[in-house]
């Protein structure tokens, strides 16, 4: 049922993808299923092709736009609360850094997987991160940095969260060109993702972990 939308998405055929989504909606398919079994696997394929050097940045951006167009059709049909179940993620680029290409790709990927993402933009100071996590009731915080001289800001944000009794449980995910797992570990992040696909995998893991914890 979903092979056509997966194919259209992974081949970056926007018109066809939209037509397929409309067909699926017309056939009465559960919108969450469309996201879960149609859009997501399509995006996974795009991510795979990027990782293996078959797709490049223009392809990722185009895929992001196609997913946005598809999601715009499906999301209004989601029963309220569905995306809340996945949890809210606050995302931003740290202070002193205005790079957001990677962050935006990660955001469209997470949104297409059903996460509610609150994008607080670029050049975000520590206090703004903390405030956003608090007011949005986020379970996850994602931070991006592209410069060795700005990635140190991440540690400040993490320590501000850990020193706040109401927010110390928030899971933190970091990414950006100069980072690696070792650096993420050193600053006390809960996860490091090298690209959008990894970010989704890690976000799901962290969200599952939190759900299980809440359930027990």
């Amino acid at each position, binding site marked *: 049922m979903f092979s056509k939308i997966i194919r259209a998405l992974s081949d970056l055929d926007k018109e066809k993808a939209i037509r397929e989504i409309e067909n699926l909606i017309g056939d009465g398919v559960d919108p969450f299923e469309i996201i879960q079994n149609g859009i997501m696997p399509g995006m996974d394929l795009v991510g795979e092709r990027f990782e293996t050097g078959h797709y490049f*940045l223009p392809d990722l*951006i*185009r895929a992001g736009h196609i997913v946005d167009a598809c999601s715009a059709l499906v999301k209004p049909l989601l029963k309220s609360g569905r995306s809340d179940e996945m949890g809210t993620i606050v995302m931003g680029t740290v*202070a*002193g850094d205005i790079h957001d290409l990677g962050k935006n790709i990660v955001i469209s990927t997470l949104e297409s997987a059903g996460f509610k993402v609150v994008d607080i933009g670029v050049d975000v100071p520590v206090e703004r991160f903390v405030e956003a996590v608090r007011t949005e009731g986020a379970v996850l915080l994602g931070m991006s940095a592209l410069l060795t001289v700005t990635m140190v800001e991440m540690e400040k944000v993490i320590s501000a969260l850990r020193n706040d009794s109401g927010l110390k449980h928030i899971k933190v995910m970091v990414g950006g060109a100069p980072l690696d797992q070792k650096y993420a570990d050193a600053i006390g992040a809960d996860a490091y993702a090298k690209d959008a696909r990894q970010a989704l995998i890690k976000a799901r893991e962290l969200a599952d972990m939190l759900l299980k914890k809440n359930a027990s």
Partner: protein
Amino acid sequence: MMSMTPRENYWKVVNHEEGQWVPIFWGGTNSSIVPQHYGALCKELGIPDYKRPVGDFGTVNLHPILIERLHSDVELLALGSPHRRYLDGGLIEDTMWGFRMKEVGGYRVFPDQIAPLRQAKTIEEIEGHPIWPNPDDPAYYYGARERAQKLYDTGKIVLGEASYAGSPFFVYPWLRGMDQWMIDPYDHPDLYRHLAQKIVDYSAVILERWLDEVGQYLDVLCFYDDIAMQTGPMVSLDHYRKWILPYEKQLTDLARRLTNAKFSIHCCGSCYDLLPGFIEVGYEILNPVQTRAKNMEAWRLKKGYGDRLSFYGGVDVQRLLPFGTVEEVRQGVKDLIKTLGPNGGFLFATSHNIEPDTPPANIIAMFDAAYEFGRYPITNL
């Protein structure tokens, strides 16, 4: 004792022969030092009277003592640039192309969000952009011939920088936003062709007039293109050949008629897969050779392209230079010279501008090591 002038030595090396030493390139707009760290280096070397550093990226007005002390073989001759306008909200507007910059953390950055043509959907809207270069502006050429001749007479290598008339695909994303630049060929192909050609047309007029003045004195002419990331090229070689190469080649073809200089292309990051395209454009030198990026190890470059490209750069500014010890820096320099130096084709420099987290002692140790180890023949290193 070296009997060759730096220029004579350079021409052997850049033609893939062994000269007397590995030329040291320190003083361009790339593979220089970021302005916010320039003062620290001057102080370390006891140069108290340095001027305020100038440069959108690396410092371009290096103090002559600094150039001498760090053994540089080059003198910079950059295309003049019109003034900048300071706008509200900390924005700086370029008066050549009308793109906007912002100072963030000491860096000049070009946020996609404020690119002036970001929202344009039609060619008419592109045409409506209020700021295009005025090739008659004397700021581009003022005193260029005299300065070029003076630099030429020093016997050093004259490093010509075509600046914003040699970087059509810096200008495009600065006007449109980086993401739009990448997808315009797919979403707005006519707009893409129109804007890219318009940028090239203006660049060509200015470049031609400037090269008429200085072309005969140049040893290197630098063009710019940043289309690679740490992990790989941003675009495929096919995309490069179809959407970028034809425009860049118009500028190199023009320049070829006006100067014998070797053409350098600046492309950060992992651009190994794009090198065939660069060669087709007519580039002969690669800068800044970011050896820490994927597939950009010195041995791989030398093996794959050592006979066709010279490598201008290479000393890792991401880890080795900021975080290594003096001894590790010396060893890194030695290894690089051992790998890239034989049979010429290596112009010693850093893999980008030196960043503020770099100890000045490491910078000095790096250039001293290059001076010490970079003697032909390179044996027993």
